[in-house]
């Protein structure tokens, strides 16, 4: 063979030469084996790190829907104008500018030189040569020229863009521009965010010829009904952090949002989806060449709430316009399905607009939102400390009935004001003879203070505890537990019960705080026969492409507790509550009737008004007014509670709000019935 023949040559010199060549080629082959096979992995790694940049791409956030599929929070496309730095025309423009400035700079670049011999001689005769010579530009000088060229070209483009869009624009943030160029060259430089329709049209007409400038679309959170259910939905904030179990290392991140309150916060992990990663191939100058998707974006899941947007809207509108309340109205309203515990509406006033947080919240808006007196961000339906006032008489009645100390037809002679150990309790009800029913519907303080004392405050508190007061109801939102003076609490904070304190308890004041939701769940338990339900706000969480079953299954109630109260006692209280609305003597008769005809025809409504005095120190400050109610057709259906923090009276301020909510519920039921009929007719 060719090679071996040479290696065994008779000619010694040529044999040696053959061996040298063979060994040389084998050395090369061995070296290549080492580099290309043995160490290949490391070089592939090096190649990746120098030519790829990973970018985190946030997933489109899931929608938040009401129970009928109305979108309360969704995404809209936003149009942004960006500068693509890898674009040839931009780079050419920069290069041209650089060449010009460099030529000028070269002319000015001189260095001192030594005088030549003849010049030294001539200088004695007054000859003054210019002792400079042209020199090369230093690397730093070139770099600086490049920076200036990039900035000047870009700011010209921005100015032209402003011309095209019809609004003066300037690239002012020079250091920001250089920072972007140095560190994020593979990503486009955002110039104008969030274009409006007019700007889009103007840009498409005139702006597209600008070098490197292009429009891109990004999904952005939008709340189409602005402030509707704002407190339930919550709001977002821009974030930089990664969620668990995604790639933790990125060269760059695109803007992402995280829920900061409401459902947006508590269901954030579901709504957010999984961020994807793309890898951008860059060239040796760091400009983008192409992109590949490393891991695809997984869109966030849609969250369907039990809220009915129509009812929610009415509740918010009526609450905000509540009569006889200090403006802006501060209050809360809750609508619960008493059979299932579904929250149909959860309103708080005043409202705010979660859209204000997108793309970021201006400082001025933040200041109005954090005003301590108004506190629009506080969800008053579930968060805050409010005296329940006379609505607490429902619990006093049950405690008395169960203890046997309250006999419904026993008559009491009640004075006004009512004195307990020298303390005068004011009474809005007139003095006179009161049995249970009359005392309940006229809300006699004296009667219930006596009944509370008879039953003992411990029993009243124990009853309230059974009905869920003093603990969080369990919504996936920020809730207050309220305050209930349990035995332990009294032992730790008070020296036992005084009669005055006990009297105050019976009329829902003093060491007692509740939220509208707690009261609504308690009323629901009275209405449904003693089931304390866990409130349900989230109906389902589904991937956006998941099919939704056509028949909406009525959700199962989650019974948290059953109260130990005899059906007879519950019936007695229910009848008293119905009388409060239906008896012309009742505190809530007027708002529910036009003359003697009821406003609400398909429901029977039972309720209890409440008007609590709130003191600041020793001084009276304002009234917290309530109307706690439930409604039934042939079975109990809804519990509705409305609270207004600076109102005039439960009957005057809150009961009309509740009435309008029932009207809306009535309309909703009608609609459901017709829809069902239509479905049946089709079948």
């Amino acid at each position, binding site marked *: 063979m060719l090679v071996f023949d*040479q290696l065994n040559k008779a000619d010694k010199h040529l044999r040696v030469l053959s061996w040298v060549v063979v060994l040389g080629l084998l050395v090369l082959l061995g070296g290549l084996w080492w580099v290309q096979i043995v160490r290949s992995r490391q070089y592939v790694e090096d190649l990746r790190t120098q030519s790829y940049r990973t970018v985190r791409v946030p997933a489109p956030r899931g929608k938040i829907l009401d129970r009928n599929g109305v979108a309360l929070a969704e995404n809209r496309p936003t149009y942004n104008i960006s500068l693509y730095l890898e674009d040839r025309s931009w780079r050419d423009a920069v290069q041209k500018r650089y060449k010009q400035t460099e030529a000028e700079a070269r002319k000015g670049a001189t260095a001192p030189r030594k005088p030549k011999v003849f010049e030294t001689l001539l200088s004695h005769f007054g000859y003054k040569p210019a002792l400079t010579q042209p020199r090369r530009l230093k690397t730093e000088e070139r770099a600086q020229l490049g920076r200036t060229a990039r900035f000047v070209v870009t700011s010209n483009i921005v100015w032209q863009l402003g011309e095209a869009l019809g609004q003066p624009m300037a690239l002012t943030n020079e250091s920001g521009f250089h920072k972007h160029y140095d560190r994020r060259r593979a990503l486009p430089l955002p110039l104008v965010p969030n274009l409006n329709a007019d700007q889009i049209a103007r840009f498409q007409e005139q702006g597209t010829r600008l070098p490197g400038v292009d429009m891109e679309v990004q999904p952005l959170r939008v709340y189409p009904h602005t402030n509707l259910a704002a407190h339930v939905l919550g709001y977002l904030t821009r974030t930089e952090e990664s969620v668990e179990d995604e790639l933790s290392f990125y060269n760059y991140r695109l803007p992402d949002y995280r829920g900061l309150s409401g459902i947006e916060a508590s269901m954030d992990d579901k709504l957010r989806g999984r961020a994807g990663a793309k890898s951008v191939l860059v060239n040796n100058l760091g400009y983008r060449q192409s992109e590949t998707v490393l891991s695809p974006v997984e869109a966030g899941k849609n969250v369907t709430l039990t809220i009915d947007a129509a009812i929610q809207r009415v509740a918010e509108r009526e609450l905000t316009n509540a009569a006889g309340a200090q403006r802006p109205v501060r209050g809360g309203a809750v609508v619960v399905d008493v059979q299932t515990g579904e929250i149909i509406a959860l309103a708080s006033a005043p409202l705010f607009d979660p859209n204000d947080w997108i793309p970021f919240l201006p400082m001025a808006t933040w200041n109005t939102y954090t005003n301590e007196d108004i506190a629009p961000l506080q969800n008053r339906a579930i968060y805050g400390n409010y005296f329940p006032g006379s609505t607490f008489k429902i619990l006093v009645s049950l405690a008395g009935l169960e203890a046997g100390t309250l006999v419904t037809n026993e008559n009491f002679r009640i004075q006004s004001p009512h004195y307990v150990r020298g303390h005068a309790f004011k009474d809005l009800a007139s003095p006179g003879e009161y049995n249970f029913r009359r005392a309940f519907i006229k809300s006699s303080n004296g009667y219930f203070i006596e009944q509370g004392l008879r039953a003992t405050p411990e029993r009243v508190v124990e009853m309230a505890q059974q009905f869920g007061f003093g603990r969080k109801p369990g919504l996936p939102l920020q809730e207050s537990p309220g305050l209930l003076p349990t035995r332990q609490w009294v032992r730790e904070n008070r020296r036992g019960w005084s009669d005055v304190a006990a009297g105050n308890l019976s009329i829902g004041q003093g060491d007692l705080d509740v939220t509208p939701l707690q009261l609504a769940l308690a009323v629901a338990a009275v209405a449904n026969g003693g089931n304390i339900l866990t409130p349900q706000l989230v109906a389902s969480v589904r991937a956006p492409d998941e099919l939704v079953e056509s028949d909406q299954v009525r959700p199962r109630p989650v019974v948290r507790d059953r109260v130990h109260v005899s059906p007879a006692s519950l019936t007695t209280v229910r009848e008293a509550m119905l009388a409060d609305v239906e008896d012309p003597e009742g505190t809530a008769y007027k708002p529910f009737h036009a003359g003697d005809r009821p406003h609400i025809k398909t429901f029977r409504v039972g309720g209890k008004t409440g008007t609590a005095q709130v003191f600041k120190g020793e001084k009276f400050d304002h009234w917290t007014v309530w109307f706690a109610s439930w409604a039934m057709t042939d079975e109990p259906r809804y519990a509705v509670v409305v609270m207004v923090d600076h109102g005039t009276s439960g009957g005057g301020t809150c009961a009309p709000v509740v009435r309008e909510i029932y009207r809306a519920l009535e309309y909703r039921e009608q609609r459901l019935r017709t829809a069902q009929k239509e479905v049946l007719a089709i079948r």
Partner: protein
Amino acid sequence: MFTFTQPERQSRIEWFQLLALLGLMAVGVAFIYSATLAFEANALPWYKEAFTRQIVWYVIGTAAGAALCILDYRSLARWSLIIYWITIVALVLVLIPGIGTTHGWGARRWIDLGAFQWQPSEFAKLGFIFAFASFLSRPPDELRIPMNFFKALGMIALPFLLIMKEPDLGSALIFLPMGLVMMFVAGVPARFLRRLLIGVGILVVLFLVDVLFAPPNWQIKVQDYQRRRLLVYFGSDYADKKMTDLQKQAARTLQKNDSYNVDQALISVGSGGMFGKGWTKGTQNALGFLPRAVAHNDFIFSVIAEEKGFMGTALVIALYAVVLFTGIHIAGQARDRLGKLLAVGIVTMLFSHVFINIGMNIRLMPVTGVPLPFLSYGGSSVLCSMIAIGVLQNVNLYRRSY
């Protein structure tokens, strides 16, 4: 495999070598095309593209090689001294600023001939081989005379020093193995060669120690970039302990820039793996990490390695092996000392180029501007290599049977 010790009467053209050469030329065209594919100014018409120019050079080179075969190498050798002195004059001319051009590279290696730039150092190698072969083809007894040995040394030293002056260390160094091997094969006494080797070795070691370790004012004046190339090759740290942090940082940046080509070539070769990324699919060159100025000439091998992997590089080495060993075979078949020495000189020259260039791509050798024969883009290199093959074929063709 078939045998190549053909009967005397058969054709004396070494077809197998020409076949391997054709293979190398095909590889060259393909990968120069791939290496220049992503050029920024890719608006060139096809006939101005690098690969078409390369094809033209292959054609011209083949013609020149064939033309060389018209005359017997013995007749050619009569002109050898004249050729040698013409190349020496060219090497002197290239140093004169008005005549030699730098191509903007800092080294004065080219003579501008209008249509193309001529690199005389390439042809000086051929001239040297002819002159040295005819000088050494005298009877072996004469080679024992020290005076002749010193004459031979002078013949090597003259072009060597002139090319060093350009400066083109790589091309200059090629003269050492060529001279040594030719003297060895010619039968110059081993003791002469041993002393020469030891002398050169000591000089090289002293030079390296001086460049790498001596304090600045003790160093021999070499071009700064040459010193830095050596530092890169030996992996020495640019930064000095005495330097301030700022200076150290600057030194490190400089080091990174200097070792950039080698690092990128290594990444290209290494990331090719076993089978490579496929022709024209290499990213190192397309994305500009492998500098575009060198991808198609000095570093063409790393483009081949990235796109065709170890299989491709092994094939290239096999093709070179065929060319080299047919060359040695021709040397063995030669019936006179002149022919044998010519063939040996050519083989040594080609082998040195291959070894230095490929070695440079895998950091076995320091970076020098030595082209890869037949594959690197460049007229002088291609023409010179093709003429070299022509000389080999000539020696085979005009073999006299006694």
